[in-house]
């Protein structure tokens, strides 16, 4: 052995003491991610936000199933070292797991053992003002990862080492622009949408070249002068009208169409921004090649409730009313369960019904799909208005799931919450809260006689009937749902820190495990070396915590504000 050979290991060890990216890496034998793999992912992998482009949140794995889930046990855990809301699904590519946490951290782990390969920590600016300090995951392409950051950059990392390959500024975080979503990768384009709807922004979706970070196109969700839909705005309201695109879109490769959910109008009271306000509270059908808006559907015009509809609709081939059609299914924050038909140039309304109590809607117009509003419950300037459901809606951003086995949709719903606020003219200052009311004036009220709050619901989209529901008497339900071919519905979301598995057909609670914190993260299923694993991040915060704060101060509800924070990845398997 030469002197150089003697010195090198010691030098590397010393370097590792000061490096944040050398725990066990680099990763060897990484599986490059291609368009074909994203369109048809192997059953054991979870490489997109909801595993597949259709957004169904369905895993074909069934080694863990209704018969043996009672024997499911933790096999490894990993502390992220971060508090606040951990909302990202673990992303798994052939035995490599990538997790993201609040504050722009990415950690690469051995999905079988939990050993760390490398870690990337975003150095966020000291003066950053984050209303939603979270992150929802990394996108994959070839041998790269893509992270969207709260200081409004998109960063490409080497999947094997965590090294930064490119870093593109999107907009100025000082003006309320930030990013919280998992980038959607389509054929070499990294596509993200902006957050910041409460901060006086104009929403957008933007695509970057996956290799270089060069911007390819940008489509504003609020049309400017001369663009279709601009006539639905009054004066200059469009310049700061909200319409954030907080969440990852879904994709139909057959028609090359992205379906992207768009957020609420700003400020909140509708009479402060007269008009239908396209494309707020809508789903946009976008061409991934150029960002062109092919068509849209607006869930409700002139939003006044902060009911953004940012969770993209699921793409499901649906049999209903004697025909099979390509549907979009979206349990809305506005309390309506939407069934739509997607055509290349049109989105048609098929059906819509309330899935939780609402006093806002009198019905839905059969021809147009436009909800009929009760003006007594529509917030306006200068007057306090109460409405049900609450500001957090019937289902907030946490995603529903669709089972290809049962043909049912599983919804993380909240029932018996109402809310209200007094509309107030507030001067617009870009980058600062701009709600159209005082934040101190926003209320959450429990309906008299309420017996529960969170509801895990199973709906048949073919009939519009609720098949089963599981009620949570002492907790909201604020976590995404995943369903497997083993007929397991997996969800956290409650304030008792539990992670649960329900029977997809009956709703029977089959298994539960208390975790370190509350679970806002999205469960996944994956496989390594022939063994199926279930994984989820536990880490309470953001809106789940805000609801908890409100519940804890409600009289006679008896709910304490004692959910601990701190992120941990939990991985489970059935003991063999």
């Amino acid at each position, binding site marked *: 052995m030469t002197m150089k050979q003697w010195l090198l290991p010691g030098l590397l060890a010393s370097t590792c003491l000061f490096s944040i990216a050398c725990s066990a890496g680099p990763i060897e034998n990484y599986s490059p991610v291609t368009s074909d793999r994203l369109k048809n992912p192997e059953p054991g992998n979870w490489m997109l936000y909801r595993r597949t482009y259709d957004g169904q949140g369905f895993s074909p794995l069934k080694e863990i199933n209704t018969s043996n889930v009672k024997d499911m046990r933790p096999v490894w855990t990993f502390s992220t070292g971060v508090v606040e809301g951990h909302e990202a699904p673990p992303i798994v590519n052939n035995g490599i797991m990538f997790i993201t946490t609040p*504050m722009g951290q990415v950690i690469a782990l051995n999905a079988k053992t939990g050993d760390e390969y490398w870690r990337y920590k975003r150095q*966020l600016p000291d003066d950053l003002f984050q209303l939603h300090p979270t992150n929802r995951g990394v996108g994959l392409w070839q041998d790269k990862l893509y992270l969207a950051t709260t200081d409004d950059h998109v960063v490409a990392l080497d999947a094997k080492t965590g090294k930064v390959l490119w870093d593109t500024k999107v907009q100025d975080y*000082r003006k309320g622009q930030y990013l919280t979503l998992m980038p959607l990768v389509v054929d070499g384009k990294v596509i993200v949408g902006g957050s910041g709807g*409460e901060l006086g922004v104009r929403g957008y979706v933007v695509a970057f070249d996956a290799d270089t970070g060069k911007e390819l196109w940008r489509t504003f969700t609020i049309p400017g002068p001369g663009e279709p839909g601009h006539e639905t705005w009054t004066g200059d309201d469009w310049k700061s009208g909200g319409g954030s695109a907080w969440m990852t879109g879904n994709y139909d490769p057959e028609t090359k169409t992205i379906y992207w959910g768009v957020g609420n109008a700003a400020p909140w009271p509708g009479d402060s921004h007269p008009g239908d306000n396209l494309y707020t509270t809508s789903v946009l059908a976008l061409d991934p090649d150029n960002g062109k808006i092919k068509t849209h559907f607006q869930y409700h015009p002139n939003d006044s409730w902060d009911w953004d509809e940012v969770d993209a609709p699921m793409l499901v081939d649906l049999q209903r009313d004697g025909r099979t059609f390509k549907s979009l299914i979206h349990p809305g924050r506005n309390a309506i369960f939407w069934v739509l038909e997607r055509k290349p140039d049109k989105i048609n309304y098929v059906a819509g019904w309330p899935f939780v109590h609402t006093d806002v809607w009198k019905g839905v117009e059969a021809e147009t799909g436009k909800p009929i509003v009760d003006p007594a419950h529509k917030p306006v300037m200068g007057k306090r208005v109460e409405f049900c459901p609450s500001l957090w809606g019937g289902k907030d951003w946490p995603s529903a799931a669709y089972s290809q086995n049962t043909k049912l949709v599983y919804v993380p719903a909240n029932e018996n919450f109402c809310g209200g606020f007094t509309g107030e003219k507030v001067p617009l200052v870009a980058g600062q809260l701009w709600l159209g009311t*005082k934040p101190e004036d926003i209320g959450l009220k429990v309906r008299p006689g309420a017996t529960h709050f969170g509801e895990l619901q199973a709906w048949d989209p073919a009939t519009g009937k609720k098949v089963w529901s599981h009620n949570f008497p002492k907790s909201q339900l604020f976590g995404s749902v995943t369903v497997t071919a083993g007929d397991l519905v997996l969800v956290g979301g409650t304030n008792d820190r539990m992670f649960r598995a329900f029977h997809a057909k009956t709703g029977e609670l089959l298994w539960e495990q208390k975790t370190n914190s509350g679970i806002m993260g999205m469960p996944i299923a994956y496989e390594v070396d022939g063994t199926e694993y279930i994984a989820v991040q536990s880490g309470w915060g953001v809106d789940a915590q805000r609801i908890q*704060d409100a519940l804890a101060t409600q009289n006679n509800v008896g709910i304490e504000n004692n959910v601990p924070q701190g992120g941990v990845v939990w991985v489970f398997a059935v003991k063999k």
Partner: protein
Amino acid sequence: MSSPSNKTRRTIILTALATAVHASALRSAGAEEDPPGSDLRPQKADVLVFAEGDHEGEVIKPDDLKPGGPPVRAWPKDPKTSVVRKASRLNEVVIVKLDPAELDDDTRPRSADGIVAYSAICSHAGCPITAWMKAAQGDKEVLKCMCHNSEFDPRQGAQVVFGPAPRRLAALPLVIADGSLTIAGPFIGKIGAQQGG
């Protein structure tokens, strides 16, 4: 997306939020043109000026503050150059006049006739501290960040009494000199939000 909640604890509102942070946004837009010294942290012997309202930019005197609150938002100002240090939102402070007998032994020496000053930037996620409200637990009024409901007791060094904030607000020691509120030393404690990881 969703926003802060909870009306039941509301009592006195410090000020409308957007108005409260108006000055801090203005300095962001023109940051490149800010005069030298405007982004320095508060310096010993700086005076404090109103950050908003009809008296924006005017030097704050003890009698300008109402005993028991509500608090006032302020910027440091170099009395020699007249430069207001508002090029960084991390320089914004919130001051409140309290009964000196209510202050704990660490807080009292930093105060001037019961007037205490703290960073206006929440230690949780960097939101501005904007409200003066009854505490979620207890009946005294506290400084509150409405973004994520963190509460800080100004009588006890702005220690966290509710919410997700991981640590107290940075304190700014004060004295009264020539009839004006004057900074007696640099911030005590870390300014701004936590970093993850």
